């Protein structure tokens, strides 16, 4: 397994290089540059700005310069936020997104799996319908609608929680965004878990277990649970990544200083280095999460060996 992990990590390098190259070209092809603004800067000032950020060099030289800095762990200077390097910006934003995204994913896993299990075991009962209803609401109501509704209820009508903002990992500021992300993720995990468990429960080895006279509790926990988790693990990877993309909306609604906000501002401002830095980060995270998911398969299914 160690050699498999090592090979997978090595594979990250060409993936990363390909992603960076494509993004680099796309960014430079996009019309409008980082220094285009309502108040047009003079040709001389534009030349000064381009020289400062090495944009006066031929594109291939800029690209090599970027790769060289990247190898040294330097994501470059932000074009927009002149006082900060991209490393600074990412280092400040990542803990916010990771905390909210990570905790809500963990919560969604616990709640989603539990609800999905109950719904599967009591198929077509009131509990099942309720879980399915919640699941459907979570899937169809967009977060930019649900977020403001949560704020309206819990911050304005019942002034229990702040309407947004961030205060040094103060849990009060984290509850509403986490609730929103959890609700969305629970709907997916719950539905997948329900479907998967229903299928597993109707398979032959469960029938054998029942015939042996095992209590339902033991059947579910010891025999059905692990295989039923396989599809849940499959969706966990994309869900973890989408926690970052979902953050684009959540962070705007709750005014959070996370990665999502940087992505939006970076793209809108044509902040090339910031966007590339975030692309590198998201690519690395995607590769790592996919690796973890693959390793989890091996743990859940003894037939899978690397």
């Amino acid at each position, binding site marked *: 397994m160690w050699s498999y992990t090592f090979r997978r990590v090595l594979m990250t390098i060409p993936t990363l290089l390909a992603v960076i190259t494509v993004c680099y070209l796309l960014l430079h092809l996009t019309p409008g540059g980082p220094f285009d603004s309502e108040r047009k800067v003079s040709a001389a*000032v534009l030349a000064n700005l381009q*020289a400062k950020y090495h944009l006066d060099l031929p594109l291939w030289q800029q690209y090599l310069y970027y790769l060289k800095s990247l190898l040294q762990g330097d994501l470059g200077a932000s074009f927009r936020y*002149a006082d900060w390097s991209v490393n600074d910006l990412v280092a400040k934003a990542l803990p916010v997104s990771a905390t909210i995204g990570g905790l809500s994913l963990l919560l969604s896993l616990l709640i989603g799996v539990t609800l999905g299990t109950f719904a599967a075991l009591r198929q077509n009962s009131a509990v099942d319908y309720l879980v399915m209803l919640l699941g459907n609401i979570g899937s169809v109501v967009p977060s930019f609608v649900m977020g403001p509704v949560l704020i309206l209820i819990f911050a*304005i009508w019942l002034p229990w929680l*702040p309407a*947004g903002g961030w205060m040094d990992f103060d849990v009060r500021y984290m509850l509403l965004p986490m609730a929103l992300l959890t609700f969305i993720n629970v709907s997916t995990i719950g539905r997948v878990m329900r479907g998967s468990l229903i299928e597993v429960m109707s398979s032959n080895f469960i029938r054998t277990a029942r015939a042996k006279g095992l209590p339902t509790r033991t059947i579910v926990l010891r025999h059905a649970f692990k295989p039923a988790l396989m599809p849940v693990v499959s969706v966990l990877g994309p869900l973890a990544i989408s926690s970052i993309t979902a953050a684009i909306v959540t962070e705007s*609604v709750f005014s959070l200083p996370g990665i999502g906000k940087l992505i939006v501002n970076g793209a*809108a401002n044509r902040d090339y280095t910031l966007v590339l830095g975030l692309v590198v980060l998201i690519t690395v995270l995607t590769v790592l999460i996919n690796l973890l998911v693959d390793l989890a398969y091996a743990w859940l299914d003894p037939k899978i060996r690397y």
Partner: protein
Amino acid sequence: MRKTTVLSTIASSVLLALAGHAMAAKMPAGTQLAAKQELIRNNGSEPESLDPALAESVGANNLTRDLFEGLTATDADGKVVPGVAESWKQTDPTTWVFKLRKNAKWSNGTPVVAADFVYGWQRFLDPKTASPYASTYGVFVLNGLEVSEGKKPVSAVGIRAVDPYTVEVKTPYPVSFLPDVVSNLNLGPVNKAAVDKFGKDWTKPGKLVSNGAFMLKDWQVNSKVVIEKNPQYWDKGNVQLGKVTYLPVEDGFADVKLYQSGENDWVYQLPPATYEKYKKEMPKDIRNAPMLGLRYYSFNNKDALMKDKRVRQALSMVIDRDLLAQKITADGQVPAYGVIVRGVSGADVTAYEWSKWPMAKRVEEAKKLLAAAGVKPGAKVKFTYNTSEYHKKMALFAASEWKSKLGLDTEMESMEFKVLLKKRHDGDFQIARNGWVADYNDATTFLTLVQCGSDQNDNGNCNQKAEELIKQGNQSTDPAKRKQLLTQAAKLVMDDYPMLPLLQYTVPRLVKPYVGGYSTKNPMDRYRSKDLYIIKH
């Protein structure tokens, strides 16, 4: 002789104005202050920098205005008041002398001296600093433009420390509004020792040395910037607020929700189409006043169809600005019929004669113009704007005016903001959405929109006669004559219909009734926290 008389009149009026003490928070008699003097104001976006040389956006300038103080400053009513300079005079048409107060100090306790301004200005104009505003203000300082273009050394910038407390500024031509220009913090002092010691990090909390009424306490990117009263500030006795938190909330609806839940005292700007609602719901909180800004549409004067003045005039004549302001934008904006907006110094507002005609007569005349230009009903015009509900609403209104009154079809093209900017700057459009907010309170900031070869002129028009009048005006040392010449130039150039002026900007926002010192007579929408205070509530 005349020149001397005018100069001495200016000098004496400035000195008279300065005879009183520098004004800070103006509180009505009997105002009871709250025990906790803390304000939370939304700043609309994350500041791109706290370096006064690099600050470009409104948000960044709001912060540098609190952290730093220039030779002069502007108060809550937008009037020029003494800053670090306690007095100034124009000693000859192109020379100004500023006398600095001796008790001005940096937040580290060292005195603010003339050399700090010399360093600040040289650093601002240095091509290595690459300040986006270098050419905007560089034009007002002798050799400023040449230095920013790397054609002269930074030592050539027209600023000199005559002695530690006297700054002499040379201008390339008589700049009568220089005291207003130098209130901008791009032209503020910079503490060289701090920059030398910390390099690029000198603007970070714990390192930033500033000379304004406030000092930097905390800066969490995309979360908040916290500033606290500067105990070293020379006028600290007139500063009421102990702490100000600036939020970078961009989403207007999120901003209002924070306000409603009590976590924000100041909404940066109300989201579109909500002004009337909040005016009814929160009459004590709503604030709205015209500012020095113009919404307009650029005509591409080099386009095959738009190069005909008659077409441009017809398109401008039929837009009902009153209806647009009252029913479409419905946020208190003022109809505009010229490039100069109300409240600008240095030129009078001009308006087309037809602006007073009944609409039927305007339409009739416009139809004649189009017919004369050979444009028949059913002809197509192309309108380009950046994706936004607000701009879309305005564009649909304009298109319906052109269709219903002139029979013209409008092809609408919406795109991302940066793409629009690129198209506008490259002249790749027929009619495009545009807007301008003044950098300083003088007519010349608006005239740049229609001047020959100006970076801000997206229309591509040029009127040599108007250009000559502007030049004459700028050379004049007589303010009345200058005003007359610039007004004449504005009228002349607008008679060419290079652009379609629509509305004068307003900034509708919510401010808690307990925030004192907020004035609706602030045309630049620049509020120093020094002028604000919290009333007992």
